[in-house]
């Protein structure tokens, strides 16, 4: 049996059941107040098992694409349900599942108001993300791209904080705007292929072979780039991110920072660099400039924030600048670095949002000046916070440094001054991360400190797993890099093997 469709359908189905279980009549019948949470947990465990099967079925890298699934959908238009999995998508799906599990353990059990709907939306977002990582039919890809947007919009708009409506709207408009440009590009590419070959298809592999003139390929690539740049985010269009991250409920913040941003990076690798290699190479200088701008601008603004979540959000803009820099450094090394950075950022920033969300839940404020030192009251929470803050400042030995180092090295090959500029971001990241540490964790105690519950051992275990992942990723990144190598759409040519050079 092919596990790929199950990977996509399972969360949706589980979410539906959770919704049903959350309805008041059902909840009364079940006599369990957190039935939706339990069902969501079970769904994720099942999903993990399916993913485990999918991973273990292809232990060795016999061929670059590890699993295929194909089924006609709208044959007259050449649209099919086509799912393919390579190392990159597998690694990112693992990341999604780990973060989702951490979310369930740490953040969503307390959601009482409409818990069923909440978990449904959470799982629907997950399904959309997983679908995005797997789809190799461009129409299906677009479908999933939009699918993950809507539930996230509702999550922010309904369960968010004080300014949620505006933030949700901003998030929706920006992402939707980018998505529409991508749709234009997809249609353009399909039409070009139809004109050249006479076959109407949305198949990624077929479209990759479309002969394109330089101008057209640049235009089409820019369309894709616009959508991914909004999602990543790249600096001038990052505007939605700080608001959305800040206003979203904790679980949604984690998903946004940990996974949704990664779809942008994933898309750039899969659809910009691999689908239009020449255009991407010509665009690379500009993209690298944008990357450096993102690194410095995000870190700079992060230094002046007083809102915990906003500080982390701007920090993640800075980190994603490294991803952009790596992807467009036109070398396998930079690409690998970008992927490692995506994984490490997902884990470290996701965990930071979990910690920040827990603080907000206990203190009812996100203002660092009012929180005060928490170490005395909550040593576990604080030590976790310190750990992840240190990880996000790029401490060697933890995952983020591995990614940043490879990206910087690849950049140095292209242009040393750019690399030096980007490495200034490391100094700035130390400033904002330690400001965070010394404002709320290792700091003088705040004025009115009522006794607060620290993380219980179970939640600490979940965070401990994330810490262990980060340490392994930092000390021994090689297996992750072999594991998560992206595959090229040209499976037989030599160029394809180069994509994940060993």
């Amino acid at each position, binding site marked *: 049996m092919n596990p790929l469709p199950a990977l996509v359908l399972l969360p949706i189905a589980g979410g539906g059941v959770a919704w049903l279980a959350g309805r008041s009549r059902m909840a009364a019948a079940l006599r369990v107040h957190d039935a939706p949470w339990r069902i969501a947990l079970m769904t994720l465990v099942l999903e993990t098992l399916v993913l485990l099967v999918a991973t273990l079925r292809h232990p060795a890298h016999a061929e670059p694409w590890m699993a295929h699934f194909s089924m006609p959908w709208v044959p007259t238009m050449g649209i099919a349900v086509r799912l393919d999995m390579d190392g990159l998508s597998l690694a990112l799906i693992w990341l999604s599942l780990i973060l989702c599990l951490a979310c369930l353990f740490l953040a969503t059990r307390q959601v009482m108001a409409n818990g069923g709907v909440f978990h449904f939306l959470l799982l629907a977002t997950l399904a959309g993300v997983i679908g995005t990582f797997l789809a190799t039919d461009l129409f299906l890809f677009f479908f999933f791209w939009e699918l993950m947007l809507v539930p996230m919009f509702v999550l922010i708009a309904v369960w968010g904080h004080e300014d949620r409506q505006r933030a949700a709207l901003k998030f929706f408009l920006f992402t939707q705007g980018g998505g529409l440009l991508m749709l234009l590009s997809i249609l353009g590419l399909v039409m070009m292929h139809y004109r050249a070959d006479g076959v109407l298809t949305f198949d990624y592999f077929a479209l990759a072979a479309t002969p394109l003139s330089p101008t057209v390929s640049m235009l089409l690539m820019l369309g894709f780039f616009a959508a991914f740049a909004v999602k990543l985010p790249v600096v001038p269009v990052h505007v939605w991110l700080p608001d959305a991250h800040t206003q979203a409920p904790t679980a949604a913040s984690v998903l946004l920072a940990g996974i949704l941003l990664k779809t942008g990076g994933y898309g750039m690798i899969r659809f910009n660099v691999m689908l239009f290699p020449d255009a991407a190479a010509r665009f690379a200088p500009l993209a690298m400039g944008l990357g450096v701008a993102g690194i410095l601008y995000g870190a700079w603004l992060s230094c002046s924030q007083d809102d915990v979540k906003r500080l982390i959000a701007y920090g993640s803009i800075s980190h994603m600048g490294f991803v952009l820099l790596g992807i467009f450094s036109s070398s*396998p090394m930079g690409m690998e670095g970008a992927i490692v950075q995506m994984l490490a950022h997902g884990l470290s920033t996701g965990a930071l949002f979990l910690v920040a969300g827990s603080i907000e839940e206990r203190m009812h404020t996100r203002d660092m000046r009012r929180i005060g030192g928490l170490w005395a009251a909550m040593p576990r929470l604080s030590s976790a916070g310190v750990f992840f803050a240190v990880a996000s400042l790029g401490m060697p030995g933890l995952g983020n440094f591995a990614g940043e180092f490879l990206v910087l090295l690849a950049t140095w090959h292209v242009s040393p001054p750019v690399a030096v500029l980007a*490495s200034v971001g490391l100094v700035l990241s130390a400033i904002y991360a330690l400001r965070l540490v010394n404002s709320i964790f290792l700091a*003088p105690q705040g004025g009115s400190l009522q006794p607060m519950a620290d993380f219980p051992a179970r939640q600490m275990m979940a965070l401990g797993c994330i810490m262990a992942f980060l340490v392994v990723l930092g*000390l021994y*990144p090689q297996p992750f890099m072999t594991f998560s190598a992206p595959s090229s759409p040209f499976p037989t040519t030599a160029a394809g093997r180069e994509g994940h050079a*060993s």
Partner: protein
Amino acid sequence: MMSLLLPLAVLCPLAASIIVFLSAGRLSARAVGGVACGGVGLAALSAIMLATGLLAGPPGGVVHAQLWEWVRVSGFSADIVFTLDRISMVMILVVTVVGLLIHVYAARYMADDPGIARFFGCMTLFVAAMLVLVLASDLLCLFIGWEGVGLCSYLLIGFWHDDPANTAAARKAFFMTRIGDTALLCGLLLLATQAGSLRIEPILAATMAGLVPSFTLIAAASFVLVGALAKSAQIPFQTWLPDAMAGPTPTSALIHAATMVTAGIYLIARLHVLFAAAPVVMAVMAVTGALTLLVAACTALVQSDLKRILAWSTISQLGYMFLALGCGAWQAALFHLMTHACFKALLFLAAGAIIMRLGHEQDIFRMGGLRRTMPGLGVAFVAGASALAGLPVVTAGFYSKEMILAGVWGSRFMTPLSAHVLWATGLLGAFLTALYIFRCVFIVFAGEGKGAVSGGTPRLMAVPLACLTFLALFGGIIEMPDVIAPVHLFTALLSPSGHPSPMHEPGWTVLAGAIVPLAGLAVAWVLWGRTPAVMREMPQQAAIIRLARPGHGMDVLYDHIFVQPLRLLVWLTRRDVPDRLVAQAGWLTRSASIALAKTRKDILDTVARRTAIMTAEGSLLLGWMQNGRVRWYAGWVAGGLCVALAVVMLS
């Protein structure tokens, strides 16, 4: 067997650290101290075993432990790999043995602190990171340790985080070293781009074979030098180290005197081949070292805080080592590093014990006459001070300082004159060193007693002090100037393959090196030793002292030039410009559309109202016409007929 011991030496303190962190709040203070000392003790044991094994082996032999591949991509590879050679052997002995003594001391010193688990967790983690730094034979692996010790230093300086001044000092230390680390990282990137790997051996071999272009060499060496200067608190990065004294005293002894701050020296000694190929950088290094040596010694002369005196003295001694490195005498630098680790740790620990017994009083002018109340600590402190000053023959500091001075005298770079100028600077530094440290000794221990003294020194703290006193006095006899005795064990140890180049220096230079500290001691005695003292300097006495006391000159300058403007700039640009633009655009669109809607509504309203009015008026008119009078109707008919006829006729 040996290559198994190597990772074990790193693993022991690391395991101790993890145990201590995980069991925070569950273990008693004694147990925490025991675990930490056990971890470091095992590391020290394996270090000693490794050292004996290495020395028993063939000269030039190394112990290799290839652990795993960090990355291997096209164009670059890095490994986690440890190598023990003679240089790193000296370092691991210093780190683990001095580290163990300080841990034993700290187990008692910190016993009453509620955060003892966090303290020992960081301390043992520091030892592990320092061992990684020392043992790594891949620069990337070294960088992991390099930043790791910086992190531990940050956590320990800000250990008492209830005082914002402490955390500010911690952040300052981290930021300044981070700037250097970033420069070092750039150097690594440059070397990696050139060589495709960061293994030290191939890089040095390529340098020696002249395969690396000289511009690249100079650039790489400069980057590494900046990193080393920041880590070792040399000009222009010196301001973080005095503030770092905010941490607990054992931390100051271990991290900010004996080990971490010497990492820069170690790195350059390790890469001395690279630096030898970049003479410009060497010259800069020597001049920076000499400058730091003098400036820091002068600053130490006017301090009144006991720990700050020692901090400035550390900076000054590190300046000595950089001077030696810049002159190519890297063996001398390492020798001084070793003796300095012993006597500076001794000074810090003795100072810590004094401060503890005086009820956390750090101002030397509120101390006095302590030779009567704590004679044991007095002996230890004076032994450390003599070693620091380099009193001839009986102290370790004398021999290492002699070796440095000889190296500087015999160095050949640029012109011989400048070498002699540097030598004179070193000699002047030696004089100042003796002056400031004996000023401190006389003020603290001589004179009449002030303030209350409580308790005695616990045995757990006294034993490490005794061991360090022994090392500070007799640790130096393994290397002597030819004039005294031809003992060159240390040089032979570092370059076993033969031709231990004895520094040919005239006998009078050795004599000068021996007399100058004595002169310093004598002047200090004249000024501060006799009762009543000639110099009755008190805090805030003279403007020059006030300016120099906190080392404020540079600090204030940096604050005004970098920190404040940067803060202002960050504050000014705290708004996200694109965000503002989008918000403004949204607001404009909204108001425009509201205005538009309003206008449209207004027009439609007016039209509708008018229509209604007109209809009403029309109907009134019509109603008025239908008044039921036949004459009117006939008149209308006739009028209509006339009009119709007129229309027909006219058209």
